[in-house]
């Protein structure tokens, strides 16, 4: 991981994970995937290297949104669905803070869907951890916008009749500049992705496939089962070919307008035919195809799928202020009050 360079002040001393451990009892269910995310955060924050008082966590409501209590930074536990909007205010007000949003699939994409697409569109420089367990955990098991069609839950006893969002697709549809997918059982990948999210200027959305052991256990079994996972997952790395499989002999390539899975060594296919991953590519078409891939025909993509450069809202705001300030003749309220059409009696 190369160093991060931006306007957020770095810590003069090397921090450790203990610097971010809070004194609160962690009350998630034993076995919940959220624990792994917490562990990854406290591991990666010292590496990111900002002063500890420059980190701010903002969340909404949900099991996942209890996160801020469990990590020793500045923290704001908001209201349901509004973490993204609250965080927008925090970051615009003070761009020198490293702002992290923790949200659930319901919090971000059900009630919070509007702020979610708008923060992404504006490309405000925050990092968003979307803990996607495809269920409402805190309210005990109702379906969410990511629950698969037909899912039987407390509010869909006969199966849902709703097509789910694919978070990656929605992010890209909203002009997203950074989208990555991690999974709770792979902490190493999670910390790598978090580091990249921190490095990215703009809204970084990190979807974590997170198991809710109580209300949706096994939602990602296919992707975590040792027997199948290597054939069901592909971990994308910038600059590397999209190769996967137990025998590392499967790959992705383009066929006409669609992506397809091929086997290296069959039908004359060689490594050269396999696509090379470029998360920084401006055109999001291929990123979309990668984000959409799903079983059984395709492997699910993990890793940083998109990380494209684009000006951030907060930078543009600061630039505009600097520029207008330099041009204007009005420097304080007394100037303003006395400007324009006035007269004396």
């Amino acid at each position, binding site marked *: 991981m190369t160093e991060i360079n931006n306007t957020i002040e770095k810590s003069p001393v090397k921090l450790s994970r203990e610097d971010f451990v*809070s004194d*609160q009892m962690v009350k998630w269910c034993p076995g919940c995937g959220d624990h792994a995310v917490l562990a990854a955060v406290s591991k990666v924050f010292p590496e990111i290297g900002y*002063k*500890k*008082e*420059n980190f*701010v*966590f*903002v969340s909404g*409501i949900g099991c996942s949104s209890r996160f*801020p*209590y469990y990590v*020793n*930074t*500045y*923290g*704001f*536990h*908001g*209201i349901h669905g*509004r973490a993204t*909007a*609250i*965080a*927008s*205010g*925090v*970051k*615009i*007000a*003070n761009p*020198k*803070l490293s702002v992290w949003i923790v949200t659930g699939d319901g919090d971000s994409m059900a009630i919070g869907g*509007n*702020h979610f697409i*708008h923060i992404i569109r504006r490309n405000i420089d925050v990092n968003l951890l979307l803990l996607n367990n495809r269920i409402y955990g805190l309210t005990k098991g109702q379906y969410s916008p990511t629950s698969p069609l037909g899912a039987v839950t407390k509010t869909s006893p006969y199966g849902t009749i709703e097509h789910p969002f694919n978070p990656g697709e929605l992010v890209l549809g909203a002009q997203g500049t950074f989208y990555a997918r991690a999974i709770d059982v792979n902490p190493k990948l999670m910390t790598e992705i978090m580091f990249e999210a921190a490095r990215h200027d703009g809204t970084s959305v990190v979807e974590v496939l997170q198991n809710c052991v109580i209300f949706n256990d096994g939602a990602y079994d296919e992707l975590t089962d040792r027997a199948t996972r290597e054939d069901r997952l592909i971990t994308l790395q910038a600059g590397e070919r999209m190769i996967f499989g137990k025998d590392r002999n499967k790959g992705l390539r383009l066929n006409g307008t669609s992506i397809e899975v091929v086997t290296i060594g069959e039908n004359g296919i060689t490594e050269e035919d396999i696509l090379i991953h470029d998360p920084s590519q401006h055109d999001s078409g291929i990123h979309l195809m990668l984000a959409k891939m799903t079983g059984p025909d395709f492997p699910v993509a993990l890793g940083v799928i998109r990380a494209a450069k684009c000006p951030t809202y907060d930078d543009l*705001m600061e630039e*505009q*202020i600097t520029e*207008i*300030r330099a*041009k*204007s003749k*009005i*420097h*304080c*309220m*007394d100037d*303003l*009050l*006395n400007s*324009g*059409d*006035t*007269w*004396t*009696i």
Partner: protein
Amino acid sequence: MAEIENKVVEMDEVVIRFSGDSGDGMQLTGTLFSDTAAHTGNDLATFPDFPAEIRAPHNTVAGVSGFQVHFGSAKIHTSGDLCDVLIAMNPASLKANLRFAKKGSTIITDVDSFEEKAMEKAGYAANPLEDGSLSDYIVVKAPIRMLTREAVKELGLDAKSADKSKNMFTLGMLLFMFSKEMTYTHKFLEVKFKKNPTVVEANKRVLAAGFNYAETVEAIKSTVSKVPAAKMPKGKYRSITGNTATAWGLMAASEKSGRQLFLGSYPITPATEILMELSKHRNLGVKTFQAEDEIAGVTSAIGACFAGSLGITTTSGPGFSLKSEALGLAVITELPLVVVNVQRSGPSTGMPTKSEQGDLLQALYGRNGEAPMLIIAASSPVDCFYAAFETARFALEHMTPAILLTDGYIGFGSELFQIPKMDDLPAIVPPIAAPNSDYKPYRRDENTLARQWAIPGTEGLRHRIGGLEKTDVFGQVSTDAQNHEKMTYLRNEKVMRIAERLPEQEIFGEPEGDLLVVSWGGTRGFVRSAVEKLQKEGKKVGHAHFRYIMPLPKNTRQVLSAYKKVVVAELNAGQFVKYLRINFPEITFKEFNKVQGQPFTVIELTDKFNQLLQED
């Protein structure tokens, strides 16, 4: 000019109403006339009356745009009830505005616009200028369109371009009628069209044509009048609308407190102008965030508060409703959020361009659970500046979210504003926690009960707050029964203690008497005028106008008990009176309510008060 001055009648005050088609430029005409009057020493107040539609079909009643100015040689409280002069640039504007004209007033019409089709579109069966229906008025039938085109013919302007300066003709006539010079308008034109000298010249010629034409009209010549300069406090003045004043008041509080101003807002009539005004001031470091909706407006402002800014959100009724949940969050996190509600006529979308005082009870009680907030109500366009400043000041110093109530009438209306010096405004000192101090999120100041503000980025103050109930002092998540009750009462008491810092409630009039008129918010001017009128008639009437709603001034009970009868006048079905009944059960209140989307008129107020004085 000498000749004119010979015949002038002196008048104390005059109300002029300009009206015309949306495209006729009546807002500008009214503003230029008002500015001229102001520069010549009159006190004044104005109010624009926009059509609900952007540009409804030409010549329809729906497309009429109006502007009223009330100017005088004494203190002017309102933009006036009925007018002394009505300008009607087409039949539709006559149709829409005749009800605002006093009997015997002068009506200036562009007779050229009274064509068959236009009259039909306005809903006139016969020509009102000729069917005798206006016999109670002095009607000036000026061939404005024709004379305007005439005046610019030499400059080679076509009819369409010429017609754009018809409003200058009208302005010229009015300047003559009220013995005002054309110089202010000249200067304005020179600046505005500095890139196009022909346009400047054309407008000047039309202005002069109107001025000169007026002299030739008998009906005008005989009524030329002059409103002498008012005796106003010495100082520097400007004219300001309530919405601009609100924006500036908030900016002043930001400067005084050293807290960056962050506005999260979503456009909505009649509050949008505050967002528009604030977005101009990047030069002063103002950050405006046009949010995707009202909820993002308020929650981004809460986020900014958390981050150490003066976080503000501005809106009107429907948007205020949407913010209800988030206001609860600001209450429980005890952050200095300022919410401005420029009230309009409800319920629901209601009548968006009309004013009302219908959101008071919502401001007081419109949140789930016990969620008290500071509430201040501005009483006039200029007072918006001071009320906004004060709202932000108390919010910041007492760490409480606060609501400023204004309304469409004072928001769009303008008054003359004696420019204050920033040094003369009180200091604002928020309780910001020192780096590395022993910080506890819910430890309170003994006197104010305000908690401290620990700003992210500060060393040694990392902490977490949020919407769940927290323990006293320490701020841990808690469902402890006693703690919850304690915190509930602390949050309330903190707001109530602000009363210690409020000035005493004043009574305008004798300390005791027969009838105390109580009002609040944007109705101050009308009620004050009515009370003044009755006092002049020797009646024992007093006026207590409330700016501080929650908490009420400490001497409120005393004030309300000083008179034999108390009537509460408000532009809703009776909201402040409910609040007073809750707080002062022992006092008997009478009500005068109006729910028409229109301001009070002085006349209906005096009628009502007289009736109450007579009743037993």
